[in-house]
């Protein structure tokens, strides 16, 4: 009974929180189509949450920046979780693709530093935060399109 409950809890956590499981769990992530589909969904969901955060952040200057930062880091964790579910063939054939997607996240992350530099240069916090959110929102949409295209090409989650 205890084993069954423990397994059920683990299953629920895996399905609902793949980011937590694959980004923080000390054991290796399963390399299965199911795991890939879960992490694909996690990445796409996290992009939505990040984009929502960019819409609300300009209305909350004091906490908005931090919230967007947290959601972005959660996206990075979700993406890392996905890469941990890839099989050797996908990793080999998609080495450049996943490197580019990671580079894309690095580039988008520059928006946070640019925001602080803009404030240091004299832009108001409101305006700098608004600009940062616009860039992150639009850039992550572009990134998501690339992500979906590359994953489809490499048959991530197929089977």
């Amino acid at each position, binding site marked *: 009974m205890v084993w069954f409950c423990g397994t059920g809890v683990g299953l629920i956590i895996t399905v609902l929180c793949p980011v937590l499981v694959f980004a923080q769990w000390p054991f290796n992530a399963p390399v299965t189509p199911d795991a890939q589909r879960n992490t694909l969904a996690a990445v796409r969901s996290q992009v939505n949450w990040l984009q929502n955060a960019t819409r609300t952040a300009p209305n909350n200057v004091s906490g908005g920046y931090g919230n967007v930062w947290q959601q972005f880091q959660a996206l990075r964790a979700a993406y890392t979780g996905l890469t941990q579910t890839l099989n*050797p*063939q996908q990793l*080999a*054939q998609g*080495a*450049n*693709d996943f*490197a*580019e*997607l990671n*580079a*894309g996240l*690095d*580039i*988008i992350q520059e*928006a946070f530093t*640019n925001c602080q*530099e*803009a404030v240091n*240069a*004299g*832009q108001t916090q409101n*305006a700098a935060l608004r*600009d940062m959110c*616009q*860039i992150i929102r*639009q*850039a992550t949409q*572009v*990134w998501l399109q*690339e992500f979906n*295209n*590359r994953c489809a*090409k490499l*048959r991530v989650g*197929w089977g």
Partner: protein
Amino acid sequence: MFRHGAPGEGRHVLLTSISLALALMPVGCATKNSSDNAPEPGSGIVEYKEMTRQATSSIRSVVNSLDKVAAQAPPCPPKLSNDFSQQVLQLQVDSVRVRARTQTIEARGDAYFASWSESIARIKDPQVRANAERYRPELEQSFSKIKLASQQAGGAFKPFLSGLRLLRVQLEKGSGLPQDDATKELVRTTRAHGGEVLRQLGVIDEQLAAITTMLRGKTVASN
């Protein structure tokens, strides 16, 4: 299976040159059916060309807008000011893909092209494979030029974007660009960096066109 090369110098050179040639080909391809996992010849090149052209268009738009703003004594008309601001923001979005490609080529170097050696076995078009072997020295040269142009474009883009962002803040603060020497110099250097990025993107575009011609031979012209 992942092959990192092959025994024998001649075959290694062949695989390296073909992998160089095919490095950009499978990216962004669409397979026609689930059983056909061979990349569509040329589609990766088409995608890369589209990236560079989008970035080129965005850069030209923002430089054009900068010229108008820089030529305007304060106060700058809101329309010009807003247009420049939005162009700078849009450039940061439009350039993400090509910058990611450029940075990846720089970071992975030879590994970027070496990882595509597996794609040789997946190319089903015998004509493309034959052309890749036939033009291997020229393909090597083209990819070397692309790699160098990518590095130089990336090197110029950072100060270009940094200058644009700073000018944008100054424009918003003062309802026009200051007419002092420091600002004029910033405008000049920013335009110079933008021009260098455009030049290097042009080199990449030329080499992609050359690669397309070589791989397709004279039968089909890829766009």
